[in-house]
């Protein structure tokens, strides 16, 4: 009995790894590079805030209210005499903490629910689908406000508000991606081989939707930062006197004719950070897109 040997069959080149592709993108696209560097810097600033900030962000001084920028106060002071630069530096912590944790938790929870719904179909999917639709029907800001108002201020309450706002969006994408992969022959092959459903979800579905989820995470980080700022601006977010870019703007609004520096600085900080995360998201999507297309 002869074994038929498949020799000399064409071998296709290994496509470069994700890390390699992303690094190449960084090197060739200056805009992305600047965005990544900025974000890296921002993270360092947030982590090492106590070491970097020249002054105590909470220290008030009646004698030094509304000062313009000077050597002691690079961005001046606000109506309570607090150093604006230090407040901006510490404010980055609030934005980044919330901005990173909320989307990650939302992605985790939302994806799991979306995958379960998309994979099992039937009544499970109907329930999941309706739940998603229900939560999606609330505008993000409104949902954030309602939850924050109901639960009161506080870091974890705010996280909860953002997670509830974002999770359905992740669930929807996870569900849609799962539905399309569910019908792929290789999933059917795994079922035919006798693999258990949870194993199939983790081993076959998850790696194939991870790309889309990763892109979404980067995009929602910038939304989370904006949302935190908005809620803080409305007084529902980070509790004063702890600085957050949002409540710096709020205080600054009351003091518009005293000094414009707090609002302008905080505004810039938010804008640059959101822009940087958006650019990062674009780069992530472009790197993952050829993968997704495969």
């Amino acid at each position, binding site marked *: 009995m002869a074994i*038929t040997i*498949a*020799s*000399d*069959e*064409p*071998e296709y080149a290994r496509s470069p790894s994700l890390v390699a592709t992303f690094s190449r993108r960084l090197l060739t696209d200056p805009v992305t590079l600047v965005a990544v560097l900025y974000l890296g810097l921002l993270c360092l600033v947030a982590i090492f805030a106590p070491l970097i900030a020249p002054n105590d962000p909470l220290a008030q001084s009646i004698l030094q209210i509304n000062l313009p920028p000077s050597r002691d106060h690079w961005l001046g002071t606000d109506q309570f005499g607090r150093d604006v630069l230090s407040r901006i530096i510490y404010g980055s912590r609030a934005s980044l903490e919330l901005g990173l944790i909320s989307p990650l938790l939302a992605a985790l929870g939302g994806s799991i629910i979306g995958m379960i719904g998309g994979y099992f179909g039937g009544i499970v999917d109907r329930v999941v689908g309706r739940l998603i639709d229900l939560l999606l029907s609330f505008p993000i800001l409104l949902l954030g406000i309602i939850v924050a108002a109901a639960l009161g201020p506080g870091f974890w309450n705010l996280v909860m508000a953002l997670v509830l706002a974002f999770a359905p969006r992740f669930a929807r994408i996870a569900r849609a991606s799962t539905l399309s992969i569910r019908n792929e022959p290789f999933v059917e092959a795994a079922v035919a081989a006798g693999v258990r459903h949870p194993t199939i979800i983790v081993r076959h579905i998850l790696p194939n939707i991870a790309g889309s989820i990763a892109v979404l995470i980067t995009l929602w980080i910038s939304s989370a930062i904006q949302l935190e700022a908005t809620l803080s601006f409305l007084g529902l977010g980070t509790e004063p006197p702890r600085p957050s870019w949002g409540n710096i703007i709020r205080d600054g609004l009351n003091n518009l004719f005293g000094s414009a520096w707090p609002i302008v600085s905080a505004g810039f900080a938010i804008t640059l950070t959101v822009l940087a995360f958006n650019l990062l998201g674009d780069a992530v999507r472009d790197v993952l897109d050829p993968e997704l297309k495969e």
Partner: protein
Amino acid sequence: MTGPLLEVEALSVAFGPKLNPVRAVDAVSFTVNAGEAVGIVGESGSGKSVTSLAILRLVPDPPGRIVGGRIRFAGADLLSLPPARMPEIRGRDIGMIFQEPMSSLNPVMTIGDQITEAVMLHERISARRRRALALEMLDLVGIPNPAERFLSYPHQFSGGMRQRVMIAMALVCRPKLVIADEPTTALDVTIQAQVLALMNRIRSTFGTAILIISHDFGVIAEVADRVVVMYAGRIVEQGDVRSIFRHPAHPYTRGLLQSIPRLEDDRRRLYQIPGSVPAPGARSAGCPFCPRCPDRLPICANAMPPMAEVGPSHHTACWTNPGASVAGAQ
């Protein structure tokens, strides 16, 4: 009109970066005479589809480009025409039928509109006459209730019917040549029989020349008068259909014919050609089939065999052909 209808001479099409191009089609030459049916047969990677696209200058550029040779149709050199003139040729003088009728038909236009659009592009006649012409074509290709189906959308037709619609669209301006690229591959075998019978009927009724491309020898045998066998971008054998099937001269053609499962044959094991088709970038100086050839000679790995006569109306590019060394010396 004397002379062949279509003359392809040393056509070469390359893909990829300019510094390191890959030749999908390499010095391909063949002709199609008026009213004749020529079949191009080959497996994937043979370059047969790219050849047909090149004739109508439909090769996507980038990444592909025609890098050599000439294509003459009814005396005119197609490659030297300005690109803007090509749409006139397509449809009016040369019709094309593709493999996947669903993706070649616009899903949001009725088929009646699509056929009349084909007419509109090439002839200035009244709307009523256009419609009449379209209905005539639908009837000709065997669509029942043409007046009703005129208003239907592609998704309301079965695969076989859609392919007939494609044939109607290709023929509505009575082109002299129709290029059919794997026209029946996506169809069931009984529907395929219908479509092939239709193509033969059209040829005998209108005298249209057909260039049919397929990987299926049975389809080729059903339609073609002459056959061109392609391998790895080159023509390895061409000739009259009977000579090719009865006396295949090239080892690849022989191997391929032997490995086809046949209805009347009861062997348990199928013959298989050892090895596999070389990847497009990995071709060498000698004959592309050499690594897999059971009849190879020392010269085969180093020099490309010339196309030479091996019988009446039968040519092959193989060093085992006694005519080859004569042609090479010329």
